[in-house]
């Protein structure tokens, strides 16, 4: 096999063109395999929005609703609880909810909620994922405690708007899930306010 008379330029072109078309083919073939890993229609259906009737919720009471396998808390805050939110601000890491990833735009306010009275939070600690305990009683965890959530796994603390304290392992405020109200007493978790 001699290489005399080989048109090297033509050979490079042919090899290059074949490789390019081959690469396109490989990409097309890869698509179904990669996409089949996305949540299936069944998974998406199981992850559909959940409706909750909050008419029976007493002031100061918390209920837990399951959405996408996660606990979602709804707390009906008393006026005293709402007042405590202001007092506790110096102890908080991100009191103004500057971290945009942790709540929808409509929950970026002093109450982290659409309606001040009703707090809606995803009950998963932003440290390593345990579900914190509801501790509404003042001075329970420490003398300055205005009520909030305490995570028993590594001691992270959150106030009654789900905002994280300074100096605890958790780095972020508790997440506010997308939610909206279809009426005064009916909460839908999983549907954003503008799409309600």
């Amino acid at each position, binding site marked *: 096999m001699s290489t005399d008379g080989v048109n090297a330029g033509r050979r490079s072109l042919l090899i290059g063109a074949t490789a390019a078309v081959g690469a396109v083919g490989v990409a097309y073939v890869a*698509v*179904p395999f990669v*996409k*089949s890993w996305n949540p*299936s*229609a069944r998974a998406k259906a199981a992850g559909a929005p959940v409706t909750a009737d909050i008419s029976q919720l007493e002031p100061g009471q918390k209920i837990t609703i399951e959405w996408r396998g996660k606990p979602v808390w709804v707390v009906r805050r008393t006026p005293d609880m709402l007042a405590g939110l202001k007092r506790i601000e110096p102890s908080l890491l991100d009191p103004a909810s500057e971290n945009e990833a942790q709540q929808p735009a409509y929950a970026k306010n002093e109450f982290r909620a659409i309606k001040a009275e009703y707090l809606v939070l995803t009950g998963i600690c932003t440290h390593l994922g345990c579900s914190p305990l509801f501790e509404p009683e003042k001075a329970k965890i420490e003398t300055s405690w205005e009520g909030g959530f305490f995570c028993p796994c590594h001691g992270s603390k959150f106030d009654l708007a789900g905002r994280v304290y300074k100096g605890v392992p958790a780095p972020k405020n508790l997440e506010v899930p997308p939610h909206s109200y279809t009426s005064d007493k009916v909460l839908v978790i999983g549907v954003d306010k503008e799409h309600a």
Partner: protein
Amino acid sequence: MSKFFSNIMGWVDARFPATETFEYHMSKYYAPKNFNFWYFFGVLSMVVLVNQLVTGIWLTMSYNPSGEGAFDSVEYIMRDVDYGWLLRYLHSTGASAFFVVVYLHMFRGLLYGSYKKPRELIWLFGMGIYLCLMAEGFFGYLLPWGNMSYWGAQVILNLAGAIPFVGGELVQWVRGDFLISGATLNRFFALHVVAIPLVLVALVFLHLVALHHVGSNNPDGIEIKKNKGPDGVPLDGIPFHPYYTVHDLVGIVVFLAVFSTVIFFFPDGGGYFLEQPNFEPANPLKTPAHIAPVWYYTPFYAMLRAVPSMFGSAFPGVIVMGAAIAILFVLPWLDRSPVKSIRYKGWMSKVWLAILVVSFVVLGYLGVQPSNGTTLGIGNTLLAQMLTALYFAYFILMPFYTSIEKCKPVPDRVTGGSH
């Protein structure tokens, strides 16, 4: 850049026979330059094997191997998993494509005497692959847990039941239960997904190593190593890479075009790739009107049915069916011809090979027909019996007709080969 690359290869080669292996199997493996159409099917078999392995793995991600969940999980894959329908059709069409390609590959062996000395071991490994493939198809077919899955498995397992004395116990042992149930399904799943694929991949490796050790045959049946140039390279040989890697790429693309056409336009293969009764869940109380195995087993099924019961046992049919496959193993020793390729054999070999092909194909057709029907005026059972006899005659008479026929002189150098 190139120096950097060759430094890396130098590092690797000092620790692992990378370049050496590539040269031995590809760039310095001298294959005959006259390969024709029949020589595509080996590489196509490998392409289909890879397809089955990859799509099979992906299906295992969503499939549920329990009696209660299997059928629904297939519907889930078809409807709810993104592109699940495509993964499923790739796998089911691939299964049929595997047999098309393997039968044509085996036929090439018959045409050109690829099983003759010194290639007998390649043929034996290949026959091992064929057996594993049939087992793989059998176990895999139960997995969708459709009605044909269930009843097809029932019929074939009951064949084992025909074995005298141990039959009943054996069938119960294979089933793991008093009937075909979730226990059977779960173990067939393990065999289909793990055990047999491992054996298959090992056999394919051995098949290729044995081939490369002696070198490839060719349509003229000439040993190209008998005519080497001053540099030790066979005069009629060309390096597998780049000549046959590029050549095979074309064949692969043509194959994929046909394969894709089936998958996207008629994946059920007219009812032969995905069978009608299988669109219903397994029902132990209701046998489909028409049980037949999948098309690639039908020639052997026709032989099985053609043999009448003897002494109250259906076992003779099982023996004949087994013998039809077993006789292929001894083919290298039945062929007494001084030449390898059909091109240079006498007219008797040509006639018998034609008879074999016609018998096998018509038996395949008869396998899907009811055994009490008629074809062109002849009763199906009688026709199947005659064709079974002819099938066996090809092999049994081979030592005679290959010895006595007059062959043509074989040239020293290959004919054809435009490379």
